[in-house]
């Protein structure tokens, strides 16, 4: 289990209804079902991943996130979760709005492009960052939006999205002191719990 998913589960109220956007092989939902007795669905576009979810007994729905969440009613879930996917969707703003419409709260995780190693690669080598959480070359990356923790929080301010909780993980994917003090420099992955009044 990715440490990030364990940390997410600690934010989830037992018995909650959860929608997991881009749920992959269903690992997070299976884990949340076991640990937090959640119910709900995962949305996924890749057919091979959908089969893996079905094999794992996870409710999965074939869907294209870029088309929005119109099949889901307002506040029909306690949490709408999206892990490591926000940077790969084209209509970022609209999807954030949709998540906060469908879910009472949203949980978002993403790779922080402000992480020091990436900054060094650009500053010293003059190359786009490639690393553990960003394993792609610029020409084959599925990531279409590159942003940092400060960028994201500025967007939340503009859109009147409340940041209810934040956790920033270092290169070992642990929430240690360093990334707590200098999140945008020492944080490799950011986790947010969001809401909207």
């Amino acid at each position, binding site marked *: 289990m990715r440490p990030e998913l364990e940390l997410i589960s600690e934010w989830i109220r037992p018995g909650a209804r959860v929608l997991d956007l881009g749920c992959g092989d269903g690992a997070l939902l299976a884990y949340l079902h076991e640990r937090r007795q959640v119910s709900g669905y995962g949305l996924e576009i890749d057919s091979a991943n959908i089969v893996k979810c*079905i094999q794992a007994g996870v409710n999965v*729905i074939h869907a294209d996130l870029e088309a929005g969440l119109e099949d889901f009613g307002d506040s*029909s879930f306690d949490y709408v979760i999206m892990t490591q996917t926000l940077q790969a969707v084209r209509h970022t703003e609209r999807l954030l709005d949709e998540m906060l419409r469908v879910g009472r709260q949203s949980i978002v995780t993403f790779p922080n492009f402000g992480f020091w190693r990436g900054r060094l690669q650009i500053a010293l080598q003059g190359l786009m960052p490639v690393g553990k959480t960003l394993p792609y070359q610029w020409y084959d990356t599925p990531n279409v939006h590159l942003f940092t923790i400060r960028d994201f929080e500025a967007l939340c301010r503009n859109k009147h999205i409340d940041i209810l909780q934040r956790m920033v993980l270092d290169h070992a994917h642990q929430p240690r002191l360093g990334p707590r003090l200098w999140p945008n420099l020492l944080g490799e992955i950011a986790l947010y719990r969001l809401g909207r009044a």
Partner: protein
Amino acid sequence: MPHHFPPDSVGLVTPQTLQFEEPLALDCGRSLAEYELVHETYGTLNADHSNAVLICHALSGDHHAAGCHEGADPNKPGWWDNCIGPGKPFDTREFFVVCCNNLGGCKGSTGPTSINPENRKPYGPDFPIVTVKDWVRSQARLADRLGIRRWAAVIGGSLGGMQAMQWAITYPDRVRHALVIAAAPRLSAQNIAFNEVARQAIISDPDFHHGHYYEFGVVPRRGLMIARMLGHITYLSDEGMRAKFGRELWEGTPNFNFNFDTEFQVESYLRHQGKAFVDRFDANTYLLMTKTLDYFDPAADFDQDLSAAFHRTQARFLVISFTSDWRFAPARSREIVRALVRAGREVSYSEISSEYGHDAFLMPIPLYHEALRGYLSRVAREVNLNGRDRESSPTIPPTAPVAAEANAHAT
């Protein structure tokens, strides 16, 4: 010399017929005083009768879903043989699989070709038009007789998927899982239009005789053939037909003849399909089944609110559609999924990439069969675990077995 079946075949199968003496009230207001249902079973019913799976057939299907009949061509097994058998998605080592010919059919269950007890003549056009709900009620009686209180799963493609949906709605506590494949929550105007052209082809055939063609010793061959040819076009996709036939000319036709003989491969294929169908299907049944399709609309009973229809269901659903299916396109399956989500039901949905059109649900497409296999292996584990729980807790008696064999006889 007996034929040796492959190890994943259910092998030689024998249809059984059950007679039902208790009248069945139908949606049309009439009732059937008595009727027969022919069915086949594969696999073994377990001790607590929890491993039974019902396969519902589509428009032109029947009870012969897998294996081969005595004396039949072993290369032409039942219509869903690629899914049913030891190690196949509907694994007969785990499940007791049941498939029956629906009322109104022409393969042994009571239908237009059967003798009407009131006048000792074939029903013909006087056979009542039955609905999906009527079918489900008749199948529930079959389940009672087989000693099956609750199906582990009810499964069907196309019109069969509609029966699976209706089962979950009509008998919420009798269905653990509903697998709804290449279906729609109701027909569109376009769907009904195609059915109407098919019906008019049959009805306007001079040999139709207002449906009483049995008495004249003829069948409306041309009409039924055209109906089937039309249907076949809607079962395939444009891309699939292009790949299979293109504009190839039929063998023996080097150039255009400048007449109306068979020239293109696709014409030859459709004519062959149409002719073969006439020999194995009854025109009155075809008319009836198309009406059954047209009438299906579970939301109609719930103020046109499909999610209200699903509100009482207890089953978990697996919904599957195919990208090139334009008869019941993926968007139609998504309507079902949306309604289930809004009703808060458990559902998974997979859209399988395929160029086989509507027919894809009968094809051994790897991802499709993997999805079915993955889902059903969990169903098998679920019922087997429950079975063991029940054995260790004597307070819950197993479903009382009903003497299923009492009225059964081979056809």
